[in-house]
């Protein structure tokens, strides 16, 4: 019985660390959770997953903006690293909605749109590996193959660079990997028609639509 108040206090500390965008406090609270011996999967949900979802909702309502969303995600990542290590050591596993590699395609240096999608996916329970900008087709695939990835997300801001999204899909096919990944495309000039033309699995007009689309498909790669 004595563990209950302690557990709630730890959850509160974890939640506040996310709400205050504080990575150090998040790490500290996560370590307290590990040291106290409480159920760490419950800690993930109550301490981190719930608050980060709320942050995503506040971002959606434009009550907070990209910097806060990124700082909140960073704080969660810092604490999650501590919890994940302990859970894995104990033979457990944290369930993620899916693992994504995301990047802006070759020849395109535009970062912000892709960064927003990455932050919002993370806030909504996806594990995200952000490859940055000017990512060649082969690097998307190497990154996906070297991690336990289900989704390859490609951003392009220019009419002229969006055809590199086609190259990623085509190269996946050439390597016999096309069915292994959900290929998601987005960016200002990209349309549903373009996604269909190149054989991508999904098109998202913006970050919110990306989350909705993947949430709707997640049963396909659920473990």
């Amino acid at each position, binding site marked *: 019985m004595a563990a209950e108040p302690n557990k709630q206090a730890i959850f509160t500390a974890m939640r506040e660390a996310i709400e205050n965008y504080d990575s150090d406090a998040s790490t500290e609270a996560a370590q307290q959770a590990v040291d106290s011996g409480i159920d760490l999967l419950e800690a993930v949900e109550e301490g981190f997953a719930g608050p980060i979802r709320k942050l995503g909702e506040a971002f959606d309502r434009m009550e907070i*903006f*990209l*910097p806060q969303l990124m700082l909140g995600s960073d704080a969660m990542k810092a604490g999650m690293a501590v919890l994940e290590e302990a859970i894995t050591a104990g033979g457990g596993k944290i369930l993620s909605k899916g693992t994504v590699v995301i990047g802006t395609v070759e020849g395109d*240096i535009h970062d912000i749109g892709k960064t927003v999608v990455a932050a919002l996916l993370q806030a909504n329970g996806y594990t995200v590996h952000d490859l940055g900008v000017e990512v060649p087709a082969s690097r998307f695939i190497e990154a996906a193959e070297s991690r336990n990835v289900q989704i390859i997300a490609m951003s392009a801001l*220019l*009419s*002229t660079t969006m055809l590199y999204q086609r190259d990623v899909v085509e190269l996946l096919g050439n390597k016999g990997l096309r069915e292994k990944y959900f290929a998601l495309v987005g960016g200002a*000039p990209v349309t549903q028609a373009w996604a269909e033309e190149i054989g991508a699995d999904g098109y998202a007009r913006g970050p919110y639509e990306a989350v909705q689309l993947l949430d709707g498909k997640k049963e396909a790669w659920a473990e």
Partner: protein
Amino acid sequence: MNFKEIAKRGETGPLTEANDFLMKRVSANVLKLEKKYQISWDGKTLINLDDEMADRCWQAARELLLASGIFSMNSKRIIELSAEEIDEALRFAPAELPMGQGKDAVRAYHRQVEDPRRPFVFSGPFNADASEEHFVKLNEAFAQERLIDSLLFPGYLKKLDGQMIRPTSALASRAAMLYGQWSREAVRRAGRPGMPITGHAVMALNEIACTNEQWGLRSTDPRAMVLISELQVDDVTMTRLAYYLAYGCPIYMAFTPLIGGYGGGPAGTAIVAVASFIAAVVLGGEIVHIGPQHIKFKQQTNMHSLFLAGLANQAVARNSSIIATTSHTTSGRPGSEQYAREFSALALTAVTSGSNVTGPRPAEPLGFNNVSPLMARLFAEVSQAASGLKRSQAAEIVARLYDTYKDKLDLEQAPKGQAFEELYDLQTLRPTAEHQALYEKLKEELGNLGVPLA
């Protein structure tokens, strides 16, 4: 500070990661400066009427640029600037700029808040995808609109011979040359051979292939560069800039601050926007184009963007001689009533706030040639009419216009419009009767709302 010094600092300035530049140098400083200078949005104002806040926004922006510098994305170095260097660049920013040739030569100029002089109008396909087949005709149709001062971005040649064009490929060089040739041909056919063409052929270095004094874009044609959000430049832009500065072209420098991004909400992003105006001038920009992006709406006539356009332009108009112009992108598309209501709302805001005008264009054109020269005429007429209004008068009309489209901003739901070849008779290059009727109806409606159209 000359371009050589800027380029040198791009190679020798402090080394950092892009994320650190954006979060620590931009976001963190914007948060502080928003409070220090009390820059805020009340959640309802469409056109700012507070001159003191516009002046504070200018001070905040100057301080932001001083604290942040400009990030060179490829070298990952910060081009740091001193207060003296910033002020010197502003002192030498031209208040007037000639462009074009012969009888078609014109001058763009700095405007004041509520300036009674008509705004300079940049209009054309505005980089919408243009088909090879209709490229010359649709540009000719824009060029024959006499209220358009400079043909703007004659359209992306996305495909040649059915083949999509990769930006750094030989095909892209060929596309850039055809862009130059066909744009020149279009203004010739319209009887304005010296009309300035504000150009940006493809987003790559081989874009400079469109340059040729006989058949292509000339040293008297403004050449467009785009800063990357926020306060960043890349090697391709800097290399094009080096070439076009040396070639002697007027430099049209655009930037696209993101509302909801690293600058935060509309007030914070207005500070970033004004800092970008100043950064553009420091880099060599002579006409500076603001094209705010929005994290949700992805267009420029929502209430956040209207407020930002007003405040940022007023800050610039009141505190510098910068020749400013404002981009107009809408949810509604050409051929729809909503298109005109949206661009009119923003034109009334921008023009009364001291800006010239660039546009209009749908934020998400559907397919090729989703443009209307006739709607560009209406845009120019509304912009001209707006120069006879005070901000308070414009604000009343903008509020009425905004009410008509505020619930239809979603790009997927917004009217699809029609392509140029459906809106125009391609033999005569005149609007179809239906499109002409739409124009007459909208003009009457705008007049009834209080826009003083001739």
